[in-house]
């Protein structure tokens, strides 16, 4: 499970680094809100969630877009893992 989550983390990082959403020089924290860290603005967060839905074939319901569930890259990866496990 942890290995799978690491793959999701890597995919998210690859997406962010290859996108126009942040500065290439930015350190991307795994355990902090990207919004609160000033790395992404609200547009960037929506863009990232859209990528996750399109890439991993998930529909993220509104009630899941919370700090507890999606408040960092590591939490996003865990969320993807849990959702994919349920739908497998």
């Amino acid at each position, binding site marked *: 499970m942890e290995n799978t989550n690491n793959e999701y983390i890597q995919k998210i990082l690859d997406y962010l680094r*290859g996108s*126009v959403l*942040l500065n290439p020089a930015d350190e991307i924290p795994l355990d902090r809100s990207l919004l609160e860290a000033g790395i992404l603005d609200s547009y960037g967060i*929506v863009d990232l969630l*859209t990528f996750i839905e*399109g*890439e*991993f*074939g998930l529909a993220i319901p*509104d009630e899941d877009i919370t700090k507890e569930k999606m408040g960092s890259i590591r939490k996003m990866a865990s969320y993807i893992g849990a959702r994919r496990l349920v739908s497998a």
Partner: protein
Amino acid sequence: MTELCARCVLPSTFPNISFDAEGVCCFCARPETTHQNQFDARQRQEFEQIVHASKGRFAYDALCCYSGGKDSTYMLKMMVRDLGLNVLAFTLDNGFITEQSKQNIVKVVDMLAVDHLFFKPARAFMTRMYKEAVFGDLNQTRGNYITRISDICLSCISVVNTCAARLALSYRIPMIFAGFTPGQIPRAVIKNNHRFYRQTYQQHRDHWNARLGTQAEQYLDLPDDSFEIYQMSPYLVFEKSEAFILDEIRELGWVHPEQLDGCTSNCALNVVGNLCHEKKYGFHPYALELSKLIRKGLLTRDEALHKLTLQVEERAVEKTLIQLGVSRAAIEALGTRGNRTCAELSAA
């Protein structure tokens, strides 16, 4: 020397860009997400469900952010005639909407028989905000926005979004429609975006109030309100070409204003925002949006290049600069910062 991508219009000065041997940029070469088709279908279904579920619940079904430009004009027509919505149209007059655009607005809302409100924020506040955005550090803490929007447009759209949300909250309007193109926004439906705006203001309050005064609160903050609003961007689910849109709005009496740059059809300030952006950052603020439209097949590369290079008469630019209280020399001096990359600008 600046080179352009062989497929889109992104230049070599664009942040984080690279080109392959055929001169194609890394953004054009990037594959779509694995389940993109599935996402697109779901997005359209969600859009239609929300429109259906929102009808008739309150006095107005939807608020239309109506700038008077071609995209929001066709969107308003679509809302009334195709979707059958009871609409309140709202125009934020940023002080630079052309006279022709104002005439268009009045004609179109009459033709479509919708209620309409003009709101003009205090000129002193808006001018100060534009200047702080261009010459100061107003937006420096807002992430990597410079790839997709100019300092001036970002500031202006923030006020538009906040004022529209405040209006929707006070009238209890469950949907806000905005004429964003598929190149400007990543998804068609965003729930409770007004909470993001509120959060953004809370996050930047000290910084913004220091630059703009406490008046910033009335234009950029929102009340804490549990009312739910969907922000709807119909052009992401009903993709329309520019030619189609222009054809459709002609029957409403809409006339294209003169002396505007190729990336706007209502705002005389846009050209100044573009000039400042190019001076500061070394690329056109619409290059990314137009490149996305090219990739989606909604615009040809030649059409995009035409938009980016359409010249506005110098006297029209001067008139706008005088109104803004900014000299040409001040804009030229922005260039002394050089065409630095996003990372360099951020580190500076």
